[in-house]
């Protein structure tokens, strides 16, 4: 769970969440691969440099959708049921993520929009690598629930 998150009701456009850091090392990549292949340790562009090079990549790359789960869990930490029932994520993968990359997740409020189910908090989100280069960019949103 993320620590130090603000109260979502207090967030206004322009406010940013404290960044979250997650590392995607070989072990994380292999664990994710084992999960998506039903428990198998397969060689593919995500788990093996040689297979990746044969596919035209410089070396193995993490699955782009893997860290999208980090965004979803982060938004759930912040918005709880308002993300699980009413949340949205839209992302574009702009650069590969390589084994060992340390990702910084950033989220800045773009808009508070009133809609039928309540107030929607819309964030601009990004994953930056350790060189501060965006690797995944997009948006995430969820509903503010009164607690």
């Amino acid at each position, binding site marked *: *769970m993320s620590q130090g998150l603000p109260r979502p009701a207090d967030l206004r456009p322009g406010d940013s969440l404290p960044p979250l850091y*997650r590392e995607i090392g070989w072990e*994380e990549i292999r*664990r*994710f691969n*084992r*999960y*998506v292949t039903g428990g198998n340790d397969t060689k*593919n*562009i995500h788990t093996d440099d040689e297979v990746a090079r044969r*596919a035209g990549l410089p070396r193995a790359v993490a*699955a*782009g*959708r*893997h860290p*999208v*789960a*980090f965004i*979803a*869990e982060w938004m*759930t930490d912040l918005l*709880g*049921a308002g*993300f*699980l*029932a*009413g*949340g*949205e*994520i*839209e*992302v*574009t*993968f702009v650069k590969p993520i390589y084994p060992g990359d340390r990702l910084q997740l950033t989220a800045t409020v773009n808009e508070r929009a009133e809609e039928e189910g309540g107030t929607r908090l819309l964030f601009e989100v990004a994953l930056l690598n350790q060189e501060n280069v965006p690797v995944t960019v997009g948006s995430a949103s969820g509903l503010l629930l009164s607690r």
Partner: protein
Amino acid sequence: MDKPDFVWENLSAGMVVGEREITVTAEMVAAHCGAVGADRAWYREESPFGGPIAPPMIFINDLLAIYDENFRRFGTIHAKLAYRFHRPARVGERVHQRVTVKDLYVRRGKGWIVSELLVRGEGGDVVCTSLHTSVLSLTRAREG
């Protein structure tokens, strides 16, 4: 029977790639949490939705799994992903999944495919939808 290759000529916009029903189990949830480093009591115990629920991204691999059940796929490079979470799936719930090709196009010499995963719960209500835009191998594709 051999499955068709996952290439342009074997796909068309509107086609249903496959459908299936699966049960969301506690073991699936635990495996997902281990794979993505998620940890939340709601996934194991009580939640505001009445009992344990699955993480929002529990179906992270199911679109590709359904493609693999119906096509010979050689890997997929995703460019974009979009998710809409209507409600969480409950642990123990049987859900229906359907993958549909929403669009196929060629841009800057590359083939692209937009696929949708639609997940419905036991009552037929929508649990979540996701749109996946990925590179598609061109065989006889034409720009246009």
